[in-house]
Structure formats: structure tokens, C-alpha cells
């Protein structure tokens, strides 16, 4: 059928459009040349440079620390929010949870910058970044948890109490095991979002601290070398693994992202 072959060729082109740029980045990370222009020869040199780059490693450590702390807190708060929104149908909370996710990131970044300096008199650094990351990750976790709850037969929870379980037992033995996949998926998503975040971190970072994306940014702006390709490749590997694991836990994450 000509229609489906037209669909196929258009789709292949789109997939190619999505992947070719990334493949180029990965391929050139092994290129024995300073310029990202022609292929000269295979080398692992740039990776070697990467591992000796103190600043880059420091940035990576920061990114990891921030990601772990913020995803843990965001998961806890987001799970609570997801459950609350599903069960109690509050008026204000859904709005507060979704908006940081739906609005352009720059608005959150800028308002937090103002808030930290004017109101809290906080020196910008790791703490400010963590606080900022938690704020926008809560929304993702809440969406996923809520989607998971919405897809379940409501009478299960009543059945548990009907059969003798206290509200706490119901949560421990029925609710929590059933939302677990969503919680884990949300946690992994938060981790990924935090590691990758550029815009919000850009505004809340201050002096003396840097994260991986920010480090990449300054390298891009100031002095581009294939070291950027190398770190990009490694970063891609990390987030790829995380997302694949997340999608195994909850295929509805994909739909949750689509709101």
C-alpha cells in the first residue's frame, strides 16, 4: 500500500533526523583531530584528557551528588503529592505541582534566583541548586504516581479495609506495592532530569560551583574540543541506561510525560 510506504519513508527520515546528530557526536569523540570536521583516525585520547580534567571531574561529582539528593527528596515529596492529588482532589496542589514543569524553565530559574538572594539571603551554591532541582522534579514524580493510581481499580483499597486492614496496613500492603513501579520510574526520571538540567542550574549556581552541563556549556562557548564529545558520549550512556531501566518499571511513564 503506497500510503504505508510513504509513512515508513517519512518516519525513517524523522528517526534519522533524531539520531544522526548524536551519532556524529559520538563518532567524533573518537576522532584524532582537534576539529570536528573530518575523520582523521581512531583515538581514545579525548577520553584520556577527560579523565584528567580536574574541573570536569569535579563538575561530574557535583552533578551526581545533586542528582542523588534531589531525586530522593523529590521522589518522597512527589509520591506524597501524587497520592494526595488522587485521593483528596485538592484545589491548589495540582497547580503548584504542574506549573514548575509546564512553564518555561527560565521563569523558575529567575524567580528562585531572586528569592534566594533577596529573601533568604542565601549564598548560591550546591544547596540552592538542590532546592531548585527538587522543585521541578516533584511535578514529574507526582504525575507518574498519580497516573499509576488512576489506572487502578479503586475498590481494591476499600476491599483491603473491608477485610480487616487498618488505613496504615492498607497503605503498606496494598497501595505502596502497587505504586512502587511508578515511584521508581519517577525517581529515575528525576535523577535524569537533575543530571541534565541546564537552565535552572544556570541561574541558581553562583560562583565556585559547577555542574556537568554548565561545564559543557562553558566549553562550548569558550573552547570547543572533542573532549566535549567524549563527555557527551559518556553522559548519553548514563542517561540512556537510566531511562531504559525506568521504562521497564513503568511503561506508563511514557504516557505520563505526554501529560
Amino acid at each position, binding site marked *: 500500500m503506497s500510503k504505508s510506504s510513504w509513512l515508513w519513508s517519512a518516519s525513517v527520515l524523522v528517526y534519522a533526523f533524531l539520531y544522526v546528530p548524536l551519532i556524529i557526536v559520538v563518532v567524533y569523540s573518537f576522532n584524532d583531530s582537534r576539529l570536528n570536521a573530518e575523520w582523521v583516525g581512531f583515538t581514545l585520547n579525548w577520553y584520556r584528557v577527560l579523565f584528567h580534567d580536574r574541573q570536569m571531574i569535579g563538575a561530574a561529582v557535583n552533578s551526581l551528588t545533586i542528582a542523588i539528593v534531589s531525586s530522593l527528596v523529590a521522589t518522597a515529596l512527589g509520591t506524597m503529592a501524587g497520592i494526595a492529588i488522587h485521593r483528596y482532589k485538592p484545589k491548589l496542589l495540582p497547580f503548584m505541582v504542574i506549573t*514548575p514543569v509546564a512553564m*518555561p524553565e*527560565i*521563569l523558575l530559574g529567575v524567580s*528562585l534566583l531572586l528569592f534566594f538572594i533577596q529573601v533568604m539571603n542565601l549564598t548560591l551554591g550546591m544547596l540552592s541548586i538542590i532546592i531548585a532541582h527538587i522543585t521541578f522534579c*516533584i511535578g514529574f514524580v507526582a504525575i507518574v504516581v498519580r497516573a499509576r493510581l488512576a489506572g487502578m481499580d479503586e475498590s481494591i483499597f476499600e476491599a483491603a479495609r473491608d477485610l480487616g486492614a487498618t488505613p496504615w496496613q492498607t497503605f503498606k500492603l496494598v497501595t505502596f506495592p502497587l505504586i512502587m513501579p511508578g515511584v521508581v520510574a519517577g525517581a529515575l526520571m528525576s535523577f535524569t532530569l537533575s543530571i541534565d538540567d541546564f537552565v535552572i542550574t544556570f541561574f541558581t549556581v553562583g560562583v565556585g560551583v559547577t555542574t556537568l552541563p554548565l561545564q559543557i556549556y562553558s566549553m562550548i562557548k569558550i573552547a570547543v574540543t572533542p573532549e566535549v564529545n567524549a563527555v557527551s558520549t559518556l553522559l*548519553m550512556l548514563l542517561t540512556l541506561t537510566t531511562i*531504559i531501566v525506568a521504562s521497564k518499571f513503568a511503561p506508563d511513564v511514557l504516557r505520563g510525560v505526554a501529560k
Partner: protein
Amino acid sequence: MNKFLTSGRITKWLVSGPPFLYLTMFFLLPSIIILVASFRYPGDYGGLAPLFGGEAGRETGLTLETYKFFFSDFIYTQIFIKSFGVAMASTVICLLMAYPLALLIAHSPKKHRDFMVLLVILPFASNFLIRVYAWMIILGPQSAVSLAVNHVLGVFGVAPVPLLFSPFAVLVGMVYVHLPFMVLPLYTNLEKHDPVLLDAAQDLGANAWYRFWKVTWPLSLPGVYSGSALVFIPVLGMFAIPDILGGTGDILIGNLIKDQFLGTRDWPFGSTLSIMLTIAVLLLAGITVLISRRGVENV
């Protein structure tokens, strides 16, 4: 009254309390702060002037000065218009590219679908900057693409055109980064279409194009609206892509805001710009909701 009702209330506060408090403190409050800041005077060394007190002759308190400043020079409005234009163009291009892909995935056998969707999301997994950087490579003056394009242009006697640091590069970057956001809602919608409807249309004599235009497209509109919102709104606020891929004349709202806060440190003006961006986004979101609601009734 009943024990289990009151314990229910405690649980309610225990569960919704912490996220509510956290978001009030770190989202609601900052939003209010920035709203107020848009009405304040700039401080001497950047930042904000104090609200109260201060020496005589110094400006304190609230004012509409910054809003007047915005409208005083057309260039600011121009940047807003340009940003809307870029967002519009990106959305349309994303739609054209995403639709065939979403259709294909929706019509594929069930076991392939999750994998195909995963393939769409994976590039999203790579760092945003990497995705932008990749285009620096592709559109760079020494790249194969640039050389090819300029060669073709040379044949027609046109001077070489730099692909990078141009509005074109900005557009490509915007589309590239946001394409998955258009594919997913479209796919989610298209997947739910009952194939029986198309069969019925065919049975009644409709050809392939007609079937698409009169059945598939109208039913897919809610997905189109969601996807468009998910592309349009973030693009509006982007600064990194114009910053990296664009030339000096290609700045958009996001860049303007960034400059005010981190460059010239004119915080009130930056706040004003942010508030105006917020209003624009809220209006758009509101329109999207209205259209999609009415669209559903008409279908």
C-alpha cells in the same frame, strides 16, 4: 462523630502537607517575589532598590517605570514578536515531522510500539546541550553539510551562506530539541482511534486522503493541541539555543531576561520581562484549553 473520619483528616494533612509547604516556599513565594520585583526600582549596584526607607532623593517603593520602559523602545516588543514567530515556526515544523511518525507508531503492531516510542524518547535522554552542540558540528563552516549547501549555492552564483550562528540554525535547534514533545501526545491520541471508523469511512466510499482529512485529523486535534503547547511554550522561553546556535542579532525573550539578571543586573526590568512572558504563556495555555474543549464538542 467517627474515629475513622478524624484520623482520615490527619492523614490528609500528613500526606499533602509536606509537598504543599515545600512548593509554597520554593515556588509560590518566589513567583510572588518576582511579580513584586517587576514593580520596583533597580538598586545602585544592580539588584533591587529597597522597598522602604532609604535616603531622601533616592527612589524607593513601587512603580510602573519598568513597564513603561519596556514599551518605550520598540526593540523589546520586536524581540517578543520574533520569539513568537520562532515558536510558531518550530511548532509547525515539529507537527509536520512528528505526525507521520506518530501515525506509523500508532498503526504498528502492539509489541513494536513501546520500542518505537522508546526510540523517540532516547535522544531526549541525552543532555540538552549535547543535542544543541551536535548541530554546531553539523552546521559548522567546515562540515559536510555546509560545504555541500554552499557548493550548490555556488553553482547558482550565490555567495557562501553561513549556516551556523543564524536564525536558520536557531530554528533547527529548536525543532530538534522539542520534536519528541510533539510525537508523544500525538501518538497517545492516535493510538486510541478506533480503526473501525476508518473502515466505515472506506466502506462509505472515502479515499485515503479524504479518510485522513475527515476522520483521522479531526480526531487527532486534542493531541495536536497538547503537542503544540508542549513545543510552543518552552520554545518561547528558550535562551540557550539562540545563545549557542544564533548570531548576535538572533536574541529572543529568554536571552533578554538572562542578560538582565546576570549581565546588566537590572532586576526589575528582568522581572518585568519575566512577568510578560508568564502572561503570554498563561494566555496560550488558556487558549489551548479552550480550543481543545470546543474542538472536542465540534467533533
